[in-house]
């Protein structure tokens, strides 16, 4: 496969994500496989590169929640095609993340965005979904030996479950980093409950996720 073809496919994958054109992404992803391109190369330098640009556009205020959600759909459309063809030994995991929306809460758009950004950044994400019983966060974080536990809540009433989970995790899995986020969660409450990081609201979730992930990457690398 010539370099020109590779560049062309990567460009289309990237643009497809940025312009949230699912069809363009699917076509390019299929073509990548057809011409025998390395699937991981297509993901990292095509799809993920596109999502990184989306993050920048969001940072600049060019993009807002709708565009990012649509871009995410395009990204996943490509991932669905490419991921089964990635060689296991090629996957470098930068960390394990357990993520979910706390018990009693079913609002998961913010969580899904954060999850996607983690995946883009190369984390292995275990998504517990929404309305997750508090104990399950503890169990799953232990099972997966998670580096990060990310909790989301969109309502003041369900947010009250967060300090309980934090306490339980601290007790049983003291090495895990805990991130919390969602509309009602404030920096003050995050500090008070002893979380390691927070995101202020759904609107800023993506931006914060990028920051958190950036910070984490540094931290993870620093610890190595």
């Amino acid at each position: 496969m010539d370099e020109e073809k590779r560049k062309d496919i990567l460009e289309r994958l990237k643009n497809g994500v940025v312009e949230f054109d699912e069809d363009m992404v699917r076509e390019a992803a299929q073509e990548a496989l057809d011409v025998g391109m390395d699937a991981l190369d297509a993901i990292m330098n095509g799809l993920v590169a596109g999502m990184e640009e989306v993050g920048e556009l969001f940072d600049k205020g060019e993009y807002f929640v709708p565009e990012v959600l649509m871009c995410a759909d395009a990204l996943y459309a490509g991932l669905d095609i490419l991921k089964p063809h990635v060689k296991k030994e090629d996957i470098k995991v930068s960390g394990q993340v357990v993520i979910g929306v706390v018990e009693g809460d079913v609002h998961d758009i913010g969580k899904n965005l954060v999850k996607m950004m983690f995946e883009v950044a190369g984390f292995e994400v275990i998504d517990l979904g929404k309305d997750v019983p508090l104990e399950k966060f503890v169990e799953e974080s232990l099972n997966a030996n998670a580096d990060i536990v990310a909790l989301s809540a969109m309502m003041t009433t369900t947010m009250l479950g967060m300090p309980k989970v934090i306490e339980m995790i601290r007790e049983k899995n003291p090495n895990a980093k805990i991130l919390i986020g969602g509309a009602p969660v404030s920096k003050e409450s995050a500090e008070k409950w002893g979380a390691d990081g927070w995101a202020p609201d759904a609107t800023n979730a993506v931006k914060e996720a990028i920051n958190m992930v950036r910070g984490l990457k540094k931290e993870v690398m620093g610890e190595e």
Partner: protein
Amino acid sequence: MTSKHKIIFQPEGKRGEFEEGTTILDAAREVGVDIEAICGGKLTCGKCQVIIEQGMENLSPVTDDEKRLLDKRKAGKNYRLACVTKFYGDVVVYVPEESRGGEQIILKEGVELSVAINPAVKKYYLELPKPHLKDDLGDFERVLAALKEDYKIENVEIDYEVLKKMPDVLRDADWKVTVSIWNDREIIDIQPGYRVEESYGLAVDIGTTTVVGYLTDLRTGKVLAVDSMMNPQVTYGEDVMSRITYAMQYEDGLEKLNEKIVDGLNKILENVCREAGISTDEVSEMTVVGNTGMHHIFLKINPQHIAIAPYVPALHRSHDVKARDLGLNITKGGYVHVLPIEAGWVGADNVAVLIATEPYNQDEMCLVIDIGTNGEIVLGNKEKLVSCSAAAGPALEGAHIKHGMRAATGAIEKIRIDPETLEPEYRTIGNAPPRGICGSGIIDAAAELYRAGIVKKNGRFNLDLDSPRVREVDGNPEYVIAWADETAIGHDIVMTQKDIREIQLAKGAMCAGAHILMKELGVEHVDRVIVAGAFGNYIDKMSALIIGLVPDVPVERIESVGNAAGVGARIALISREKREEANRIARNVEHIKLAVHPSFEKEFSMAMYFPHMDKKRYPGHKEILELRGAE
């Protein structure tokens, strides 16, 4: 042996044959003709006048008492009182409009609806035989006997508080009393003398922000006095979720919240009664509507479980509770009727809106929306109704908007922007110098910024424009609506990029909710949009269409119906049938949980665009922009 005589009632033409000497009223009841006779034949009210068309000679003679009442009511020739007039031969009787029972009230504030009056509380005048040694029947039994004899009412119980005062009231009033009976089964008040024509109820709409009470004449449905106040619970949180959180966090939290609203309602009760010149214990029933959170807190039921998935309320159906159990100062034996809850957050306020607007009786596909922090949306017609609740957030009410404010003096309520010069024109409440922007102004601003091309369809500011009003402050784009020297606050009033984002989230949630309901019912467009809530009265309909707050519909098919929840509470006060209807509807509306709906995320993102990412759903958009341009 007595012979039978024919009687015909006009205009209905109903007829029957009766024993000689039957009263016209008894005959009317027998054949199902509704004649109003509120004193029950005591010759006190004079309401049961009828006109004798034929057979005047076959009637019992006019007595002095009857003549006095007929004169008092300025009755014409051939008029008789049905309750005392007996017939001894064939007669034809005409029942004039004013004597017919089943009176209707036509509501005209926003909602136009005709309701047959049939309140839960009805009053009956009794003249009891005085007891003596040979007639030592108990007081209550004496009342029961009279109710049966005069009104054919049986199986009635009595409230304990009423029972306690009854012996004295009866004797002080010389055995002439008026009893109030609730739902044909319980005496909830006894008053001295003839008080049948003084029958009052209070309809209450407990909003998260505003509480309104309507003192209503139970016999006519007319509102005698209205009073409103800020919900006094606001000190414990602006929105309903933070109040529920308060109730969850503090042991006496629920008690405090409940106390606040009960005190507030007693204040409203006092105010409306003072205005109408009656005392608070003359009010015999209350109806209450409110969102599910307000509903639970008012009833002192732990609201925790409705705030946490799967959002299960303590009950769905309507509930009747003694006012005194809640500490409300209407008549001691009186009840509070709380309307039913549909599902989760689609509460009694929404049910009230539905019985006031009756989409379930329409052929047309109606979308009923109540815009608030939590927007309730109902779609359907006589075939089926579906509902959902959309977490719109408080942006459309002015919160989370940089210069947002409540609709008060100095609030910018209307904005137009010239697409050529990009210069605005605005109007403030009270024509005062501007202090901020209220809800209608916020929707106008978004619509006009978009129409003028200052904000793109994705909500992003266009900074390539030549106008000093479009600028960037610390990297954040904004548009100046009013320069500092025009305002009352000493600095520029602006609409920022972040404000637009907040509006997108709010309108996106409402619009996505509506489109998901449309999908559920398999319809591509709606015929009518009914906007409930006081806020709806002030929204510019065209602006709402321009930003896509509502689905595409011709602008004239958007109707504002004002505080329809309050109207629904009033309807429930005067109509038992409507109470049943409310329970039926609440059960039959199919509730869609938006947050877990598979297409919500996609619909939500598409609906955040102005007016929508999928242009095909707004075929009338170009036309509406042209209409606005031609204004």
